[in-house]
């Protein structure tokens, strides 16, 4: 993602011919700063400060009179009791299975995204021929349908007497209706795949599409089989796209609680974001919710750094 905008080249100096007129250049510099100032101020006040508010609540104290949590804005007086509690529960206590389950579900869903998404993106980029425009349109279509609408669609189909069970019973694959919607982990993983795979396929497609077909021809001229050309040329060249697509899909999956609530709603499939929602919107112990958000952010930060390092390495490998 960062590659898109980070790639904008530095513009040439606005007026080389006026190098002797620094006054004019300075005023220009201030103009550009002024243009960007409202946006910068907006993001500081409504993105950076709110982020700090999570820490202030997580490290706040409990008012002894009202027994209510109070945020602490001064880092010198931060109280780590709530955060330590969350940390202990995540490492050894009741939140440990929740974290492990989240990692497992996201890993499985991401694996399925690769298994389904790579062939699809590859086919559309390379072999679709004159159906290419049609297929691209069909693959982009889910982007324009509301996420919850798409989940709702599956809720219709997965009812005990819905079309999916009708089909499975009719083809004799199962003998009695499958209970899809009450705490079935298979449904949760498949719903995550269904929800996020469009965001996986499109960036991967654009990387595969940019691979020069001449390179493949060269590989085949040099004696590669079709399969060899794929393993030695296409796959390594598509690694940056594969990494970006994985990051774009995995990040929101980690923060997803609504898919899980809709298709399961059972405590046996609870993910970390469900716990965050529970503590922040449901209960009175908001400092625990805020601590969980911090912990999740730290985990995602580690993954992001890993992504940045490996995607840089992948790009170096390409060039």
């Amino acid at each position, binding site marked *: 993602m960062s590659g898109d905008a980070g790639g904008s080249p530095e513009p040439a100096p606005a007026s080389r011919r006026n190098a002797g007129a620094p006054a004019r250049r300075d005023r220009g510099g201030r103009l550009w700063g002024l243009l*960007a100032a409202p946006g910068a101020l907006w*993001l500081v006040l409504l993105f950076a400060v709110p*982020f700090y*508010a999570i820490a202030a609540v997580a490290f706040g104290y409990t008012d002894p009179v009202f027994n209510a949590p109070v945020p602490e804005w001064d880092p010198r007086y931060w109280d780590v009791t709530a955060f330590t509690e969350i940390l202990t529960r995540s490492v050894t206590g009741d939140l440990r299975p929740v974290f492990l389950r989240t990692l497992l579900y996201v890993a499985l869903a991401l694996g399925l995204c690769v298994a389904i998404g790579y062939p699809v993106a590859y086919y559309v980029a390379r072999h679709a021929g004159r159906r290419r425009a049609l297929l691209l349109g*069909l693959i982009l279509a889910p982007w324009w349908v509301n996420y919850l609408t*798409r989940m709702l669609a599956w809720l219709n189909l997965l009812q005990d007497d819905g079309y999916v069970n009708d089909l499975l019973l009719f083809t004799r694959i199962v003998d009695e209706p499958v209970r899809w919607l009450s705490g079935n982990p298979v449904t949760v993983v498949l719903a995550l795949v269904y929800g996020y795979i469009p965001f996986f396929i499109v960036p991967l497609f654009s990387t595969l599409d940019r691979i020069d077909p001449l390179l493949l021809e060269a590989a085949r001229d040099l004696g590669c089989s079709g399969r060899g050309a794929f393993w030695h040329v296409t796959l390594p060249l598509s690694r940056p796209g594969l990494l970006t697509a994985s990051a774009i899909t995995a990040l929101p999956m980690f923060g997803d609680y609504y898919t899980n609530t809709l298709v399961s709603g059972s405590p046996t499939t609870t993910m970390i974001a469900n716990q965050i929602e529970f503590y922040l919107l449901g209960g009175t112990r908001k400092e625990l919710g805020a601590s969980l958000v911090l912990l999740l952010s730290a985990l995602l930060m580690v993954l992001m750094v890993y992504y940045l390092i490996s995607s840089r390495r992948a790009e170096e490998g390409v060039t």
Partner: protein
Amino acid sequence: MRRRPWVLASVTWAYVVWSLVPILVAIQFSFNDGRSRSTWQGFSLQWYFGSSGSVADDPSLRLALVNSLTVAGLTTLIATPLGVATALGLARWRGRTGRVVGGLTLLPLATPEIVMGSALYLVFTNLYLFVPLGQPAQILGHVTFSVSYVVVIVRSRLASIGTDYEEAARDLGCGRLTAVRLILLPLLTPAVFAGAMIVFASSMDDFVISAFLSPDASSVTVPIKLYSAVRNAPTPALNALATLLVLASLLALLLGWLVQRRTTLFIMKK
């Protein structure tokens, strides 16, 4: 000639069917002549209008639709100019501060919605107490996550335009702002429209941030309504609401495409 990759082709078409058929079935059931969302009972428009539970006659469904459109409209009106100004400034603003601000505009894109939703919820309930939860907070939140889209799109367009036209205008005696107004803004129109459309669509689509910032039934948007109604006694009216949403996105897509085509033709003619 290589042999046709029929395995890849069947995977692709199977994927397309899998990704789109459920939506078509959901649309089909919005026309169901009965309360079931899994058994077809004949065609009817009763869930759109005419019966007490239909979209047109259920005040809570109507309110959700109006709320969604209001929030998305106002978000687009604020985020688009804000994003365009920021992109213009950042594209020409060199030095460390400019780079820091540039990085700041990318961060919301890499922040999961639940993190941003919790952050905004906690800041509005603990620090910015003068902003009431509900529509005002929702609009501020939506602008925050969507302004980055405009910045990214406009900046990449600016990079491809380059500085030549602007310099030419300056050499012909234009002031800096006049050059921006007369040269850059017209060239940027397609990118600005694309950005505005994405802002509108993502605001309509957003569930997490709207839900975290919605304290009661008065600020319920369509996604919140879909989410909460699924869990208690859903009727095909829900499918009808979802169908209207799909229709709205199709219209927006068509409108955007028409505007884009007209402005590109206009620039080319000039």
